[in-house]
């Protein structure tokens, strides 16, 4: 557990090269899966195309459960990209972690609060952007004083709270999973007896981490759409 992060400073910006690496790998994997799934499109889908179409229907279902399709249709690609990117990111840290010179290189990018909060801020900013785009500035502004004027500070706090919970929930779940995996793996290398003893919980925890990764990807997408609907729809 004495892993340190690689560190790099460039053009006045601070980089964690391992994050850069894992973000790139996750993006490339998502892109490859998506392109493989939509390479030879047919009227009668088979194999990967079936899976991708199921995914599209799934995200469509998420959007439809929060807002009507006329306003929600434009968020379909956003939701699809989010759910796939986060799912793949969550899965990346599960099978192994690579540390070079006690610097951790291979892990889930979503096990870093910087990454998850970046995604969360991006989503919340997008909700504001689309609120203005769909409803107009005036309607968007007046939304902060409903149902009563004194609610304004609460509304402001709500935005920050939404951002923080959205980002930190994902981070916490994945980080906790990886910490426990690292502990179990560390125990496994301590000796034969500990290795045998830690093998079973390792399996169980990896299975549970897969489950958590799937659920977190779903929750992140769901909440994105809920916030989006909250801002974009008229009924509140």
């Amino acid at each position, binding site marked *: 557990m004495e892993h340190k992060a690689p560190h*790099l400073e460039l053009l006045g910006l*601070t*980089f964690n090269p391992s*994050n850069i690496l894992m973000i790139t790998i996750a993006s490339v994997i998502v*892109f490859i899966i998506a392109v493989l*799934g939509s390479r030879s499109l047919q009227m009668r889908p088979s194999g990967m195309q079936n899976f991708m179409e199921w995914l599209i229907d799934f995200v469509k279902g998420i959007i439809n459960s929060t807002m009507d399709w006329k306003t929600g249709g434009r968020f379909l*690609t956003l939701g699809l*990209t989010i759910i796939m990117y986060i799912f793949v990111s969550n899965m990346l840290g599960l099978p192994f972690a690579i540390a070079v010179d006690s610097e951790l290189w291979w892990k889930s990018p979503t096990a870093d*609060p910087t990454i998850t909060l970046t995604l969360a801020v991006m989503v919340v900013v997008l909700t504001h952007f689309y609120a203005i785009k769909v409803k107009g500035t005036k309607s968007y502004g007046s939304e902060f004083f409903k149902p009563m004027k004194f609610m304004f500070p609460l509304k402001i706090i709500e935005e920050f709270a939404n951002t923080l919970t959205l980002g930190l929930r994902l981070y916490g779940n994945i980080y906790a999973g990886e910490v426990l995996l690292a502990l179990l793996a560390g125990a496994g290398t301590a000796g034969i007896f500990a290795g045998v003893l830690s093998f079973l919980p390792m399996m169980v925890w990896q299975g549970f981490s897969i489950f958590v990764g799937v659920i977190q990807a779903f929750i992140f997408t769901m909440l994105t759409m809920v916030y989006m609907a909250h801002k974009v729809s008229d009924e509140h």
Partner: protein
Amino acid sequence: MHFLNPDNLVLGAGAGVNTGDILFQLLAFIVLLFLLRKYAWGPLMGIMKKREEHISNEINEAEKSRKEAQSYLDEQTAALKEARKEAQALIEAAKKQGEQQGEDILRAAREEANRMKESALSEIDREKEQAVQTLRNEVATLSVQIASKVITKELDEQAQQKLVNDYLKEVGEGR
């Protein structure tokens, strides 16, 4: 107290905010979003929409052909009914004609029979007439003969009576 050290909030965390990571993550996500929209989601949704249209077309087509088939069926049923009715009418007509013909034949036969009977009767009458005529003629001749015999033969009254009776008897038997 290992986990309370803020440096350990990230697996192997460094100090400070990784501004570069933030920018890179944003950039990567936006690029990924656009690439996927162009190369994956776009075509996929296109084909899904196309399939939807195709299916709806097929359903419309099926509906239409079903209706057509129904109308053909109705037409056929009507034609069949018509044909059956026509056949019934034909049979009826034939039966009527047969009856008519039978009656005609019967009547003709009856007439023929009547005619034959009448002609037979008239024949009989004529024959009878003829016979009577012949008889009359014969009676006349016989009378003449008797008379001549009576005249030619002189007899006593008794014998004469007997003779007359005999002749009369003879005549009656000869008849």
